[in-house]
């Protein structure tokens, strides 16, 4: 026994498990042979296979982090009203497949009764891409769970209805690294001051050459401070990106006051119509106002209101702005246009207006 304990268990490097074992039987049977889909109502999709089989999907908003209570609660409902299978989307929305049309209403009702929203399909505002934030990450400038929760409260009706011109994919990121990715709207931390260095810690904690190498603008140099090896930041060069902080936590970038929120719009990853587009800065300097970030929420809602009113069907936010032009976007949303909107990063010239195409 003692011997066995000393010999640790070798991992089974099974990797990514086979999904077919967990798949709903109708999905399995018709795998690769689907014919078309329809939108039954917000939050409910109907897919029809070439075999004629039908599959309904009920899309449920959750808080992403689930405990045993929620898991059991939802699994109970799925077992009772659906077919014992479930999947999650890349946004952390739960999708409950159910083969029998007659079960859908009861399922929807049970889920609604349990306090979970049904929606996020088609031209709704989907669940916000969620990152770790203060709950778990080591570098966050803000929280993710809180931002997502407070925004989803505000956008609840847009999740449960399909009234936008096209899908709206919102993302959020709790530092400039942007694990949440690009979005139709992205609500991201933006640092505004160079890191403050805790020189006492640098030599213990940080591999100095690799920190120096991380800085995108070569603003960091090794230096002796108080007789000990540390680092120095050229504050004129520093763009306050925070990239030095993960490899060297003594380069404190977060700050209760100067860590701000910025809002970006028009990111688009699909290839539908236009090619994929990066999101673009529209607002910054927004206070990191926990616990409910009302200033950021107000801007997001304003942008969505303009989009909802003005865009044509199937125009994503980026498509819409391409058509109406940036001058009108800033006019409609009443956001200020500043020198910071003009790119000055590498390749900035590709973002300038090199034409006489002007909007009046």
């Amino acid at each position: 026994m003692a011997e066995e304990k000393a010999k640790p268990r070798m991992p089974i490097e099974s990797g990514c498990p086979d999904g077919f074992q967990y798949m709903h039987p109708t999905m399995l049977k018709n795998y690769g042979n689907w014919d078309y889909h329809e939108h039954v109502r917000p939050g409910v999709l109907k897919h029809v296979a070439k075999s004629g089989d039908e599959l309904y999907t009920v899309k449920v908003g959750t808080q992403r982090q689930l405990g045993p209570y929620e898991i059991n609660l939802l699994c109970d409902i799925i077992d009772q009203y659906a077919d014992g299978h479930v999947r999650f989307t890349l946004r952390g929305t739960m999708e409950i497949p159910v083969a029998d049309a007659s079960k859908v209403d009861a399922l929807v009702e049970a889920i609604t009764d349990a306090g979970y929203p049904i929606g996020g399909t088609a031209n709704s505002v989907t669940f916000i891409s969620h990152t770790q934030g203060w709950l778990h990450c080591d570098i966050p400038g803000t929280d993710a769970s809180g931002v997502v929760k407070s925004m989803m409260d505000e956008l609840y009706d847009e999740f449960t209805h399909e009234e936008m011109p096209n899908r709206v994919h919102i993302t959020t990121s709790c530092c400039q690294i942007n694990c949440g990715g690009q979005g139709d709207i992205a609500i991201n931390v933006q640092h505004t001051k160079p890191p403050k260095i805790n020189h006492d810690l640098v030599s213990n904690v940080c591999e100095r050459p690799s920190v120096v190498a991380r800085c995108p603008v070569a603003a960091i140099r090794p230096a002796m401070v108080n007789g000990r090896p540390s680092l120095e930041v050229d504050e004129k060069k520093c763009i306050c990106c925070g990239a030095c902080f993960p490899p060297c936590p003594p380069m404190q970038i977060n700050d209760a006051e100067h860590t701000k929120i910025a809002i970006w719009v028009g990111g688009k990853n699909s290839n539908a119509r236009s090619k994929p587009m990066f999101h673009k800065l529209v607002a910054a300097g927004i206070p990191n106002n926990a616990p409910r970030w009302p200033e950021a929420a107000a801007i997001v809602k304003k942008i969505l209101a303009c989009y909802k009113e003005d865009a044509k069907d199937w125009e994503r936010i980026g498509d819409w702005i391409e058509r109406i032009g940036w001058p009108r976007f800033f006019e409609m949303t009443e956001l200020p246009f500043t020198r910071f909107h003009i790119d000055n990063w590498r390749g900035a010239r590709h973002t300038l207006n090199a034409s006489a195409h002007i909007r009046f």
Partner: protein
Amino acid sequence: MSTPKNPEKHASYLPKEKKSKKPFHDTPNLDELEKGPWPSFVTGLKRLAMESDMMVDLLGQLEHSYNTRLGYWKGGTLSVFGYGGGIIPRFSEVGDMFPESKEFHTLRVQPAPANHYSTDMLRQLSNSWNKYGSGLIAFHGQTGNIMFIGAKSDQVQHFFDEINEYGWDLGGAGPCVRTAMACVGSGRCEMSNLDEQRIHRELVNNFMDDMHRPALPYKFKFKVSGCANDCMNSIQRSDFSVIGTWRDDMKVDQEEWKKYVAEKGRQHVHDNIISRCPTSALTLNDDDTLEVNNKDCVRCMHCLNVVPKALSPGDDKGATILIGGKRTLKIGDLFGTVVIPFKKLDTDEDHEELVELAEEIIDFWAENGLEHERCGEMIDRIGLANFLEGIGVDVDPNMVAHPRTSNYVRMDKWDEEAAKWEERKKAG
């Protein structure tokens, strides 16, 4: 939010009986986040804290973050036996104030492609985690992992051993191949041109060594989308993006199409479909049938999205491969770039070739990438043409939005290179 029908079976439910020993910290900020209609994570955390002192302190630390607007976790090193990655260790910087949650690690576990579960398996995973960890699971992380959030150092191995026995393995963290993602695709979506489940598993499971023992220049992500809608954001968010497409003509069910036109009207069809095609490849004929100029169609998916009943991908399916997508660090955001315009994925050999391509790319990058340099950054540094040469892929005009505009290039090898093209043309 209206009063729940059954408060015991509701997102807002809080058990009456508190089993944890530590009293709750005051959490006025977090309490604000219990308001509003969306299910509250705070209520979820409190529910767990009714059972667990760790979660009581976790709530305390989180409230402290809300108060001071600063984070208090720091990293460290932690792993399970035999592996070098897959866990994000977290040690509290305010452990003296919140000692019970001073260790709060996350295990990244790979789900099945497209995140399918039976409810049984969900309950089983939840039970195991409840036994060894906080009970809190994120479905899923942005890279696709199931994130088991909140374990003490000494519980990590036990939890892993338990779930590893019934079929689950750690994902990636650190400079390694990461957990992959695939869309639901063939599972239910008529747009799909790929067997996403198979491709996902073949690609990532071939690199388990590179995932579990981080030794690459930096992270490397695979994402698989069954069509150009790219529901996996693969062009932006993965180093190796596989996107389903087709090479022959799209299918048009003219009867369904005419029904649609009749129902919605010609003006609507013009405004929403014909005029939205990026290459003007569509014509609405006078008899209400649709004409597709398949040579001009770039498979953007828009028209298929609008009328899925009438329009579908062709039969000659395959994938476009784009390499090098990623976020900002350290040269600015990069989208993936077309490296294989079309890869047939019918036979076993086809699938093997795809895996070999991934090997070729990872090998070349492992050798030529700088420390902390993503594959896309390397391509940007050395140039796409050199990268293609390095991985043995022929150039193709589909790889560029347009040919070079700058005459700053040395071309004394022009004749040689032109000859290659002519040979390939001859070879067909």
